[in-house]
């Protein structure tokens, strides 16, 4: 592993990709490359964050993101405490700000927060001196997911600039889509979004994405297809009549993949509904990099934690 990564990170927090520059994103992706190697070692632990304390505040159920962050923290030798929704103070009527004040009182160095309300990480960051990393807030942003998506694409394709990516599904309720649109546009990717109009937020094209209602058009000649989880609770409302019809119109089948480039990558942020937004043969097929996304997620989170927390200790070594 390269010693003494040239530190160019100057932010207290990582709240979203909207705020980041192309160079900052590139720095995270480059740093991730170094960290990915660590998980292949016999001893998968480095002392980078020894003596620092991280609190993982998960106010919304999460399995892979929570485990991924915790593992990343432990492999960097940080001390880790976990709060989850069921044991949190929120159920006792405390506000998020109260929670923040308590964290501050315990001298924690970094907070990783997942919350069902958009802006929760911003509210926390304003009240805390500790670093705040957004692990997904409402339908706003999920920056580490988009970073791991871009890392995976770059690793496979050798570049980001000039690629075409189609994101298919419930864009309206997706923080993953928003973070990816911000990040990918900055890195020079053409982003196409596709779904029924009821599941696209207003004026989304102003974020720089091209809008498609038909999946066959959206995936034509693309380098990457990313499908998003469709929540079954949305059926029967004004969004779409049934899961059956949604799947028929937007489900990613092996037939539909044929419209894309021959070396297309199939991605999904998980958890997947097999047979709904993505067919099992596609999810498990030769183009799928879904599990590699998970592997890379760990490395991306190590890099983010290292940069955000390491920016305090200038001469951090790994």
């Amino acid at each position, binding site marked *: 592993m390269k010693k003494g990564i040239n530190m160019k990170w100057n932010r207290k927090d990582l709240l979203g990709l*909207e705020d980041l520059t192309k160079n900052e994103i590139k720095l995270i992706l480059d740093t991730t490359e170094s960290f990915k190697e660590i998980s292949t070692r016999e001893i998968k632990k480095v002392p980078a964050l020894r003596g620092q304390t991280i609190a993982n505040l998960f106010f919304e159920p999460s399995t892979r993101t929570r485990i991924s962050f915790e593992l990343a923290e432990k492999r960097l030798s940080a001390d880790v405490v976990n709060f989850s929704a069921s044991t949190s103070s929120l159920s006792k009527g405390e*506000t*998020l*700000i*109260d929670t923040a004040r308590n964290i501050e009182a315990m001298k924690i160095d970094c907070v990783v927060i997942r*919350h*069902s*309300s*958009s*802006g*929760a990480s*911003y*509210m926390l960051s*304003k009240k805390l001196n500790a670093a705040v990393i957004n692990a997904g*807030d*409402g*339908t*706003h*942003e999920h920056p580490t997911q988009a970073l791991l998506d871009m890392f995976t694409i770059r690793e496979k394709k050798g570049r980001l600039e000039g690629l075409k990516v189609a994101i298919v599904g419930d864009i309206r309720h997706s*923080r993953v889509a*928003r973070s990816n649109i911000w990040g990918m546009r900055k890195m020079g990717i053409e982003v196409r979004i596709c779904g029924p109009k009821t599941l696209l*937020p*207003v*004026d*989304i094209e*102003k*974020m720089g994405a091209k809008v498609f209602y038909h999946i066959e058009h959206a995936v034509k000649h693309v380098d990457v297809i990313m499908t998003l989880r469709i929540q079954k609770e949305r059926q029967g409302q004004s969004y779409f009549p049934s899961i059956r019809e949604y799947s028929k119109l937007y489900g990613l089948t092996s037939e539909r993949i044929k419209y894309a480039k021959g070396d297309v990558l199939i991605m999904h942020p998980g958890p997947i509904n097999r047979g709904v937004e993505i067919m099992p043969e596609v999810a498990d097929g030769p183009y799928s990099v879904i599990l590699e996304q998970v592997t890379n997620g760990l490395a991306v989170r190590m890099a983010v934690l290292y940069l955000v927390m390491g920016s305090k200790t200038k001469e951090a070594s790994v």
Partner: protein
Amino acid sequence: MKLLIKNGCVVDPSQHINEKMDVLIENGKICKLGKNIRENDCEIFNAKNMIVSPGFIDMHAHLREPGREDAETIATGTRSAAKGGFTSICCMPNTEPAIDNQSVVKFILEKAKKEGKVNVFAIGAITKKRHGAELAEIGDMKDAGIVAVSDDGNWVENSALMRGALEYSEIFNIPVISHCEDMTLSGKGVMNESYISTVLGLEGIPREAEEIAVFRDISLAKMLNTRIHIAHLSSVGTVELIKEAKTRNIKVSCEVTPNHFTLTEQAINGYDTNTKVNPPLRSEDDIQAIKNGLADGTIDVIATDHAPHTITEKEYEYDNAPFGIIGFETAIGLAITELVHSKVLSLSQLVEKISYNPAKILGFETKGTLKIGSDADITIIDENKKWIVDVNRFLSKSKNCPYHNRKLKGKVIATIVSGKIVFHDSIRESK
């Protein structure tokens, strides 16, 4: 018992007065109005370089009593109103319990008489418990003293019921005030639906949620030839609908809050819950349309929609924090800064919208004017006094205000209710 206000510039649109004059008050009434009044044996208020206006009337406020005394009470709310220059305020019925029967009306009016600094008028609910299912006992509440009816916070979605409310209220000659919001369309929205709501990941409330409701209410007023008053409008489309209705002589009046001619949805960047208000802050285009509507007379009234919420409630996430901004203590500063100094309205037009017009709509014959014999409710302002909003100095029990540290030009110097000075800036400042 006598008070002589000397050397001020009297602005009274009801009499087309806008010149230096003295005002003599005796026994709580306007007794004399003229140049160089000489009177022995009376208290003198020197209003040199100040504006002397008929007292401001806020036809849309929330005092939270009974039910939410932790956010505001009649005592604290009326002190806050006095500081903001309001001599009369109308409290909306979304209390707990709602003002939907004469006993709650009496409770509020009696409490206000005992503890209130300014005149308090009650607005009764249109429907029982504001549930939109059946008419409340409007006649009984009118006997107890209500001056209008409204289900504020809710739109009466059932058109037949709203028709009934408009017809029935006509018997008592009180206005029906409609909170126009098609809630099936606004849904779980917390801000204006736009590119910004998409970026922030917050659910949007489209302008059409308001406009659809406004259109129906105007249609009913036209069909029945009754009055309708549209509360807190926020969109270009609403201004257009009302303007058009007025050209057809439909009896529609409307109000706007200072929030909706001052702030755009840009203020929500950063998720400050003090910007969460219903109807939501909109865009620059809407503000421009509202300013045009104020200038051309489409918009009759400026009302605060003073909506106190505790600090704790506003510390919840944007989705979960309640809607509402307190308004008494910043209203006139914002109105003078945003409208008068930026040449949207003359001072006289402003007084019309914040005093004379609400009095006319509510049928207050002895308020909103300085005619001889009227109630001596007077607001004295310094239109050029600069000040900085500091929520910590508010007299309201709540602090939910997005204008903290904002520089304003135009301040209330004194508030007089029934001839008695209930607020004086210099006294307050030297406390």
